[in-house]
């Protein structure tokens, strides 16, 4: 054993802090937005060892000349995407206000991040399964889940499809390819992998799409899911929604600076893509690439979608307490709706007038869905039968809940 070290340097604990706090000047200079190695689009069947530079670049399409990743979508698909993104935003704004009016206990928005849930919803097959985070209601809207049913759940009223047992926004919609959400972050990432393995086990052709927030990648669940995905080549797309914030905590607390979330793929021997998450076309292209790879039995891909959480974390949050109030305006990747809109207008496939008209139509749809839900009732004015509290603990109730239901007299 060596002599006790007498180092001239004393150790120091490093606590990372974001570029700016309230009152400071917002900056994203610490993040690289360079396209880098992502300028080229490798074949989806390329060996992983050839793809290890990709997670340090950035996949972009819109505003990039002749991007290799351009999915060449028909204008009608892009218009449809724009409408769904807009619908999602309007829906969320409306429900946020409903919370302020006491009509629901809780709500969360995905403002500025709509492309990430919606492009995959449009692109993937009906039998594929999304394992969402709570910022993915865009998927449900894209898949045609009835708005009124969403609102019934948000209001926890008598027609709540989950019968009052679950929080607002923690939807479950098997028939719409949308796995049950829970309040725990990260804990369903491995379910996506298990589901995908089951599909492969059965010789099926369905794939899974798992989402996780960048903050939640620090959970052990993330690592365990990726380890299984890598080892068994699970046909899954595993996506990180890097919206820079986890409640009040910046992304520099979730992983060391100087690296990227996409590069975590390297640890698991799978490709990692880093994508402009506010670029609908880039989100589409990356998802499509990964889906093709998965369906070809080459296993999982990890995708980091770079975006920005323009809203507060939830109705319980006031982000001006911990970040500059104007930080969203400094986000270099802009807003997904504005960008797709501008892109379509530039292509001559859209106009301000059509946009305004679409907004009005969508608002009208929302209004009528909301009206229908409010006829059933809002939080506290209407609720499912109390007997529902005792259902679904097990498939068949046991004596405990039978007795207790009797005791409560319902």
């Amino acid at each position, binding site marked *: 054993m060596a002599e006790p070290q007498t180092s001239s340097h004393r150790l120091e604990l490093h*606590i990372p802090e974001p570029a700016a706090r309230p009152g400071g000047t917002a900056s994203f200079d610490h993040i690289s937005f360079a396209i880098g190695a992502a300028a080229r689009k490798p074949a989806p069947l390329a060996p992983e060892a050839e793809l290890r530079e990709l997670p340090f670049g950035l996949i972009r399409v819109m505003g990039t000349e002749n991007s290799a990743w351009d999915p060449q979508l028909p204008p009608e698909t892009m218009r449809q995407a724009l409408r769904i993104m807009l619908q999602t935003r309007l829906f969320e704004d409306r429900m946020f206000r409903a919370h302020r009016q006491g009509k629901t206990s809780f709500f969360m928005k995905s403002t500025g991040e709509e492309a990430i849930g919606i492009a995959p919803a449009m692109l993937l097959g009906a039998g594929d399964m999304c394992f969402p985070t709570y910022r993915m209601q865009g998927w449900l809207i894209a898949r045609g889940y009835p708005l009124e049913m969403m609102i019934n759940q948000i209001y926890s009223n008598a027609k709540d499809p989950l019968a009052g047992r679950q929080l607002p926004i923690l939807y479950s919609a098997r028939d719409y390819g949308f796995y049950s959400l829970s309040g*725990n972050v990260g804990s369903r990432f491995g379910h996506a992998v298990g589901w995908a393995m089951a599909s492969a086990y059965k010789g099926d052709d369905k794939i899974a799409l798992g989402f996780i927030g960048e903050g939640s990648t620090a959970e*052990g669940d993330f690592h365990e899911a990726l380890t299984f995905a890598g080892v068994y080549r699970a046909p899954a797309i595993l996506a990180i929604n890097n919206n820079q914030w*986890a409640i009040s*905590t910046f992304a520099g*607390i979730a992983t060391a600076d100087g690296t990227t979330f996409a590069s975590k793929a390297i640890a698991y021997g799978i490709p990692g893509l880093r994508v402009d998450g506010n670029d609908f076309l880039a989100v589409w292209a990356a998802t499509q690439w990964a889906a093709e790879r998965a369906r070809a039995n080459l296993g999982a891909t990890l995708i980091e979608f770079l975006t920005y959480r323009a809203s507060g974390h939830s109705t319980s949050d006031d982000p001006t307490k911990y970040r500059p109030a104007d930080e969203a305006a400094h986000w270099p990747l802009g807003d997904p709706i504005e960008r797709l809109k501008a892109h379509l207008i530039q292509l001559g496939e859209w106009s301000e007038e059509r946009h305004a008209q679409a907004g009005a139509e969508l608002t009208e749809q929302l209004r009528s869905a909301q009206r229908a839900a409010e006829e059933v009732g809002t939080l506290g004015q209407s609720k*499912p039968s109390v007997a529902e509290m005792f259902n679904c603990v097990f498939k068949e109730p046991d004596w405990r809940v039978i007795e207790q239901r009797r005791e*409560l007299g319902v």
Partner: protein
Amino acid sequence: MATMNMIQAINSALDVKLTDDPDTLIFGEDVGYFGGVFRVTDGLAKKHGLKRCFDTPISEGGIIATAIGMGAYGLRPIPEIQFADYILPAFDQLVSEAARLRYRSGGDFWAPITVRSPYGGGIFGGQTHSQSPEAIFAHITGLKTVIPSTPYDAKGLLIAAIEDDDPVIFLEPKRLYNGPFDGRPGQALKTWEGHPAADVPEGHYTVPLGKAAVVRDGQEATVLAYGTMVHVALAGIAESGVDAELIDLRSIVPLDIETITASVAKTGRCVILHEASRFGGFGGELAALLQERCFWALKSPIERVAGWDTPYPHAFEWDYFPGPGRLAKALARVMENA
């Protein structure tokens, strides 16, 4: 003395310890600059510096593992888990490591950590922001579990927990942060203002772990409760008209066996009240202990009033929550055998 709500009292305990003892430090999700989602650590990072109170990755297992390692070095870490529902990813670290380190190493290493976490229901938090997991900690040899019911106790117990050389789970009844709550949801929110236990000394004091408080003297029956349920129990006792003795356990491990045994030996009747679901809950242990020790004194079966044996149901919060009405009925039942 100052009037403090429970948030302020806990904040004050943390401030006292950070000031007192350079080996204490706080970390957890959102506890640093922002001061915690319930504002419990508000101002501490600013006052004591970010190295004393900092944000962590969302990794409950990592938070506890880090705390244990720091404890082994010689620090006295005070990690926060944002909601008690989210302690579970760290369960193995707490059970296999924190709780067992002293025993397995023959006292060579130990884990003097205090894990703070808001717990319990009553805030419409749904399944994963409302649970009461105390029973699973109570069963783990080597862990202490503390649950205050007032600002005064919260500060004194927390300081005692931090100064304790064993791992302590410190569960904060989030429904009590801003005011006492009697279990009747319809009414205007109460604050701690004017409550005697909201008079909290600014400086250092402790409330010892393992000493229950007799909140109300009574002769006819004993009610055992902790956390939010202490206040619900007061309301339920009043509603029942029974002259019940109310004991606030304050810590379930160590358990003040003497105080509760003496009371039940005196009254001969007992109702246990907790928010957690009933089956396998801590009420079972209490009932088992008391029928063992007070069998000949018992005039009627020990009753348990608790959450139903279902997950915590969002819309049915007030159907699930064991309120004063259910306690009053149980008291009436135990009095039937007069």
